């Protein structure tokens, strides 16, 4: 009885290899071979709903298709003939038809909205599941905004086609029924009507094209306007702090006026369509009247029949209009389907594993760079080029490199015909290239060993559980403070407090009046960069993984607080393996071992004191931070201790 939202099981079941497969029968997984197949698959999933919609809408339209006929009988045989019993009997039938029709209308509107929602939610859920299944792999390949637009606006387009599909079938049935009735009553009038009604709709289409063009221009300008509003709001701090309110207020007003003009143009075309509708409908009615009266006068038609024809003429516009609407929705849904399958057809690149290796705790070694982390120790990676350290951290956690170009799912709406087709093909080819590249990387040995076993041999979920990489882009999710720190509800309050304390987040705690139930906005808005960073750190600490890899965990934190964290964290992690990338001396003093990375290779390793004494390039990187010691750790900094330089220096140490 629960029609929506649908339960979706595709893309969620995790197999032993870390890849995923459908949990339920094959039909759960969308058919992504072509846009048409996808839309048909989607409609097939809710065939029952569509069938019910068709029946209900046909019933709903019964009063429209039958009542004119009954009214004819009442007028001819009841009212004109003065026959009371015919009148009330047929009126009663009419009432019954109306009541049934209204009931069907109510039910049909509910069912067709349900049909819409089922389809829309199905696609939204599929996208969510696909993104979760592919996780970091897909966010490297497709811009986030594109995936989100599939989950919202394209999903909505599928809702629209699912909703209108049943309506189209019903319209077809009603049209047939009415055709039979009118042709049986009067062939000539019937033919005129059956030809004229579609003709009217076709006649208004020439005005529809400029209308659509005007609408597109308006939409484009209007979305640009919205973009400007968002732009102003996001930069409001600067506009109010530095100035520029007039310039950007005026820019907005100018664009607003150009939207207004486009809107008036659209409105005028609407007016044309409306006016043409009025005139053509009226002309049909007048024509019918003239023809009808002539027939009546010749005795070929009764007055009741003529009144009935008016009813049909008005009614027939509904199914015809429905056909045209549905046609547009169908085209739109095919475009959306092309985008959607671009996302849903992607599969995780990880190869299937024949057997899962059982691996104990042990040394973690990255063979390409020669990096070694001993179990239970705090090992720090130092590099003049932060991207090098971050890339090593990614490799340690079996993350594919971030440096590939993202490919959009859709193509510009301005493209038409063969140019559009070519663009679609170009996108598909670029995606295929991404897939090949990732699969090559993911196949075979990974180059990182844990206790002597390549981590490609370990199931991916286990790798994720045992080796946790907290990258610089780690996201703070909205919710309560408690759900932020302990998202899986897997730890006690005691442990959570200790993690918070180790990350020196006392001031964040104080910022919330409701303690653990304090609300954090999406992406940690409202927290400062340093606060966000310490929340992320506390969250990672609480998870307590066997190996924790932290990328620049305190880059946005002041020296006092950093010193405090550097003192507390080693205690918290004692006995566990911790790897960190940073160049801050406050951390380096705490390290059990340091690996100095140059050009992606470990050049030297040892303790901080060791390296400071014996490795000048290392000293250069650490002492004056990294701004003047460029890649390769060249010259020691030529210290020019002006405040200006040092400000730039400290900025260099910061990463978001």
């Amino acid at each position, binding site marked *: 009885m629960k029609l929506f939202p649908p339960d979706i099981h595709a893309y969620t079941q995790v197999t032993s290899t870390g890849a995923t497969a459908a949990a339920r029968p094959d039909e759960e997984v969308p058919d992504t071979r072509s846009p048409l197949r996808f839309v048909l698959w989607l409609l097939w999933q809710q065939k029952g709903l569509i069938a019910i919609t068709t029946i209900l809408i046909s019933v709903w339209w019964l009063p429209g298709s039958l009542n004119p006929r009954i009214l004819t009988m009442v007028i001819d045989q009841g009212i004109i003939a003065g026959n009371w019993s015919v009148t009330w009997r047929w009126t009663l039938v009419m009432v019954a038809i109306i009541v049934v029709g209204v009931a069907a209308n109510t039910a049909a509107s509910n069912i067709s909205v349900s049909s819409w929602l089922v389809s829309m*939610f199905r696609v939204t859920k599929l996208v*969510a599941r696909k993104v979760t299944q592919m996780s970091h792999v897909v966010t490297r390949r497709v811009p986030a905004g594109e995936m989100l637009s599939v989950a919202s606006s394209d999903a909505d387009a599928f809702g629209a086609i699912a909703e209108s599909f049943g309506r189209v079938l019903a319209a077809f049935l009603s049209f047939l029924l009415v055709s039979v009735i009118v042709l049986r009553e009067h062939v000539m009038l019937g033919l005129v009507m059956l030809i004229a009604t579609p003709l009217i709709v076709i006649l208004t289409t020439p005005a529809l094209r400029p209308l659509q063009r005007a609408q597109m221009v308006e939409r484009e300008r209007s979305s640009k306007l919205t973009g400007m509003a968002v732009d102003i709001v996001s930069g409001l701090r600067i506009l109010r702090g530095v100035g*520029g309110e007039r310039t950007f207020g005026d820019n907005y007003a100018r664009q607003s006026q150009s939207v207004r003009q486009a809107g008036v143009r659209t*409105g005028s075309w609407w007016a044309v369509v409306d006016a043409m509708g009025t*005139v053509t409908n009226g002309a049909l009615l007048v024509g019918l009247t003239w023809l009808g009266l002539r027939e009546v006068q010749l005795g070929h038609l009764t007055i009741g029949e003529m009144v009935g024809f008016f009813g049909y003429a*008005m009614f027939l516009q509904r199914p015809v209009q429905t056909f045209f609407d549905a046609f547009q929705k169908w085209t739109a849904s095919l475009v959306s389907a092309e985008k959607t399958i671009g996302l849903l057809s992607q599969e995780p690149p990880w190869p299937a594993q024949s057997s899962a290796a059982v691996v104990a705790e042990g040394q973690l070694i990255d063979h390409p760079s020669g990096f070694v982390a001993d179990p239970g120790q705090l090992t720090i990676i130092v590099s003049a080029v932060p991207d090098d350290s971050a890339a090593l951290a990614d490799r340690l956690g079996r993350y594919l490199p971030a440096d590939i170009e993202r490919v959009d799912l859709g193509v510009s709406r301005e493209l038409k015909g063969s140019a559009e087709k070519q663009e679609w093909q170009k996108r598909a080819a670029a995606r295929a290239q991404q897939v090949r590249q990732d699969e090559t990387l993911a196949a075979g040995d990974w180059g990182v060993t844990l206790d002597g076993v390549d981590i490609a041999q370990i199931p991916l979920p286990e790798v994720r559980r045992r080796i946790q990489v907290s990258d610089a882009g780690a996201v703070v999710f909205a919710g309560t403070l408690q759900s932020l720190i302990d998202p899986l509800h897997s730890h006690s309050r005691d442990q959570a407090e200790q993690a918070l304390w180790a990350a020196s987040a006392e001031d964040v705690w104080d910022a919330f009046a409701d303690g653990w139930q304090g609300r954090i906005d999406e992406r940690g808005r409202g927290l400062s960069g340093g606060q966000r960073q310490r929340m992320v750190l506390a969250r990672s600490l609480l998870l307590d993984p066997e190996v924790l890899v932290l990328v620049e965990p305190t880059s946005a934190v002041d020296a006092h607080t950093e010193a405090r964290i550097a003192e507390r964290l080693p205690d918290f992690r004692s006995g566990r393996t911790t790897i960190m990338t940073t160049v801050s001396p406050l951390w380096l003093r705490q390290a059990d071992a340091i690996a100095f990375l140059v050009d992606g290779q470990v050049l030297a390793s040892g303790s901080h004191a060791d390296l400071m004494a014996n490795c000048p390039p290392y000293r250069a990187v650490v002492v004056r931070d990294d701004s003047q010691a460029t890649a390769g750790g060249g010259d020691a900094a030529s210290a020019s201790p002006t405040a200006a330089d040092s400000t730039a220096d400290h900025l260099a140490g910061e990463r978001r």
Partner: protein
Amino acid sequence: MNQQELVQGDALFEGSAQTWVDGPDQADALPQELLAAPALRFWPLLKGFTSRHRRRASLAAAGYQASRHPKRGLPIAENSTVSRFIGRMIKERHWLAFGLIVANCLAAITGAIMPQLLGSMIDRVAAGHSGDQLMAWVTGLCAVVLGLMLVQGILTFLARRLAAIFGQGMVAAGREYVIRAVLKLPLSKVETASTGDLVTRVTRDVGNMGAMVRWAMPTFVIGVVSLVVTLIGIFVNSWWLALPLVLTLAVMTWAVRDYLRVAPAGYITEGAAYSRLNTSLTETVEGARSVEALGLGRRRLDLTDNDIESASQMERYTMALRAKLFTWQGLAGQLPMAAVAIMGFIGYSQGWVTLGQITAATVYLQQMNGPIDRIIMTVNQMQIGVSSTSRLLGIAAVPADRQTSDQRPADQHLVGRDLTFAYRPGRDVLHDVSLDLRPGERLAVVGPSGSGKSTLGRLLAGINAPRQGVVEVGGVDVMTLPLQQLRTEVALVTQEHHVFVGTIRDNVILAREDATSDEAVWQALTAVEADGWVSRMPDGLDTMIGSGRTALTPGQAQQVALARLVIADPHTLVLDEATSLIDPTTAREVEGSMSSLLGGRTVVAIAHRLHTAHDADRIAVVIDGRIAELGSHDELLALGGEYAKLWMAWTS
């Protein structure tokens, strides 16, 4: 972790034990009753449905209340303010409004004459007239009707076009007013306001207001006019046949009012549910890497499913409301057709009505349903629009945070005296801090997070007013300076490298937008070493940059931000490192630009990095809202306090 630290932790996290909840989140969970699949037997089904409907109604009411009384964020205007605002806007274009109504009336009247003429033709034919003469008369009348149709078509075009001009003009004026209000938000409010709240207001709420003004209001007028004219037509045609309509109107009015009483809350809550779904899905997609790393996949999917479930609940609620409305509307709208048959029989047999009148009545009845549909749809949209408009006007309702005076600073000397400040009442984050800046000096402020150093910076830059004490520049309270003046005295450098959509010139001249020559812009760009790449741009200063236009590298964006400050030319800069996070590569690129900006100015650097402090003329160590140590690097080292301790840790 040892016992001693644990005790310390307990004392640090005040209220921890009271607010920790074991087990999964309850806050957002839906009532279990709503999630279970209902039984399939009739009575339990019906009973279950009504009780679930009541639950949904209370969810909707709660959602509506939450939207009207937000816990955080900007205020919401009263409904009376909204109606005054709309009234004023209509008044400003009263001629258009008048023309709109007149054109619509005329179009509707022309349309209403048609069934009358039709009826009279039928009467003639029914009366048994025949022959060529009759047909000639019919043809003539048909030609007249056709002519009327054309007139109606022209009038319809006119009416709709006027509606477009009226609505578009009004919505443009409305949104421009809103953006001006945003651009007037008090400085202290801007710093704390949630960007998300403002973004929703300038996007979704502006959209809702637009839909109301552009579409709903004119369509409502058209609907009412057509309905009234059709009703008049029906009564003029035959009062006898119009009698059943009285009942129809009564039922309709009741059903529509019943619907409108509860529907807006449902739709507003539904909209909120969808935007929650969007927000959490955005987080999941953008944070996919974190989701994977933390093993949150299942939880994020549950969250999405739960958001979809919430939206579904509201869909069910509004669906039920619509079902009720449609049922009454359908019955009240269509049953009169049957009534016309009965009344027609009686009337015809008594000689009160003619066949023509009966025919005309049936045509009128069918013409009536369109306007009624329109009115219902638009009234609903208008209620949503009013609620959005009240959120928009709320932006203008934020009180100003400063009153300007005519006093102007005598010199560039910036002093803070006895500064006390609290974000939350009763929780001072600064206590009686005094600081005398020597013009031209570089002062570094260091201290642990939460010690109040950033707050101190904001007070010195005149962004927030201290609860007690005063910040003066050249003997004048900074909070009494007009913003235009303040910006040229002292600036808070946040280094958010936001690039606005606009030309490079637009992006640079911010502080002195009224009096900046191209030459000055080039000078500023040269000062920050950006002249090279700007001159290579296709349109030079007129090159459009910002999102969706020519993209700048982070370094270039940073240089643009610095050039803005060169144009503003304040004598004192407050640099807050906490908000000036840029990546190392960018930092290297703008190093030179930065130093040329700082040259010759008083600089207060809220420092994260110790060598910033080391290189400064003086260092202030802020701890627990007080300046604990103040002096040069060497003096503080000699003092052997907090700073010395930290320095040792850094350098050893």
